[in-house]
């Protein structure tokens, strides 16, 4: 009896699971959510693959599935609240320990974590995963201009946060730690 070759799909898992998982960790802030959502992403992808419905760019397609699942995951107000609470107890980022002591990378992560979901997704897809705006637009179901605007808004917030922290450190603002 003929058995469908799964080698093609296994290749997708080997090639892309790590990146999808990292995307979902960054976007949800929780490794347990990333675990669940990356699992569901690939199970859905496998169903489509098994039905011969695999579309052209597999990587972009996986990101689109992951993004949709993630948005459904956070859809209801209740869940948004939980997502917010979850963000407060992120298990993957370093805890901030006062403005002056924080590394630039931590400030960026914190700003990203607080971005609205769509901005966060657009920003990560562009700046971390290097997708073109057209692809991001498809993944998010919006226009390329809107994708570009979302990325810009996110970048602007980061620029401001870094600017602010630099000024605070320079100016020994009241947020900076004073010696005893």
């Amino acid at each position, binding site marked *: *009896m003929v058995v*469908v070759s799964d080698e093609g799909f296994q290749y997708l*898992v080997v090639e892309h*699971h790590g990146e999808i998982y990292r995307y979902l960790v960054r976007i949800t802030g929780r490794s347990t959510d*990333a*675990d669940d959502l*990356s699992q569901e992403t*690939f199970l859905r992808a496998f169903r489509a693959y098994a039905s011969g419905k695999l579309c052209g760019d597999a990587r972009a397609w996986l990101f689109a599935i992951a993004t949709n699942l993630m948005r459904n995951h956070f859809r209801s107000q209740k869940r948004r609240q939980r997502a917010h609470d979850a963000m407060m107890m992120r298990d993957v980022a370093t805890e901030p320990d006062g403005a002056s002591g924080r590394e630039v*990378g931590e400030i960026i992560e914190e700003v990203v974590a607080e971005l609205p979901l769509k901005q966060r997704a657009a920003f990560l897809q562009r700046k*971390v995963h290097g997708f073109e705006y057209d692809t991001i637009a498809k993944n998010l179901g919006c226009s390329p201009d809107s994708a570009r605007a979302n990325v810009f808004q996110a970048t602007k917030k980061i620029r401001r946060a870094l600017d602010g922290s630099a000024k605070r450190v320079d100016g020994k603002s009241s947020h900076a730690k004073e010696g005893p």
Partner: protein
Amino acid sequence: MKPLDCARIETDLAAVAADEGNAAAQRRVSAHIEHCEACRAMLDDYRNVESELAALRERRVDPGHLGQARERLEAGLADLRRRIVRYAIFASPLGNVLVARTEMGVVLVEYLRGHAARWPAMLEAEGLEPIEDEAELSSLHRDFGNYLAGRSRQLDWPVDWRLVRSDFQREVLKATAAIPYGAVVSYKRVAREIGQPKAVRAVAQALRHNPVAIAIPCHRVIGSEGTLVGYAGGKTDLKEKLLSVEGVPVERARGDYRVARDSMYVLVPGDTEYCLPSCPSAETLRSGWPTLFGSRERAESAGYRPCTTCRPDLHPLVPRRMP
């Protein structure tokens, strides 16, 4: 060109810093920062953001968590593969027939004529996920066509037994699978084969709900008196067609079908020689629930020799003209 004011130049600054600005944006930025120190500083800030983002890109996740997620995924995929059922609907002289298989083998063969199809519910109850896939089923389709046209003697399909309801039903189906091509036996005989000679009705029920019709040849099981009794819930005409394909003589009597037992060769259980129905050594015919063959050729290809007493090889039965 009038330089843009500071509020409107920021998107261009961000784009240029990220190497995404087109030529026009580049020109607007150059023209603006030439005389605006604050925005020149902001361009530097955006360039700084871009270089800091490299750290975000390189930030690793906990390899332990990632490893666990990957392991769970592999387990999830293995489970999904086991649950995926590929099916196709074959048009045939028996009407439309659904054939479905898993990675283990053929799991379901169902006639789609008559009653509402039971297959979606059956598959769902087992947590199976059906996918229509004619290409994947094409070799089975070919086998099926050859079988119904009498060009091949068996559907050599591995069977996935998961829709079988009980150990009892599995025993019945396994005993049925052993009935040779072109032969028939009675329900009583199957009951005896599985060591439960009184469970004749239960055997009939088990066969009625055979999930893998044709491939497990429940059509080769008939009533003790030669009547076809039933098939797949009232589809006795299909049973007649399948038996005719195999060379079993079936006659129509008073609106019902009946296997012409006196036109068939007889094999007494446990014997290695087949006989004419009139053979004295086949006296057990009435008590022994024999296997009946439609032709010598069928009996011999199942591995049996002609009886040395009645010599069916010298006095073959005259084939009855079928209506």
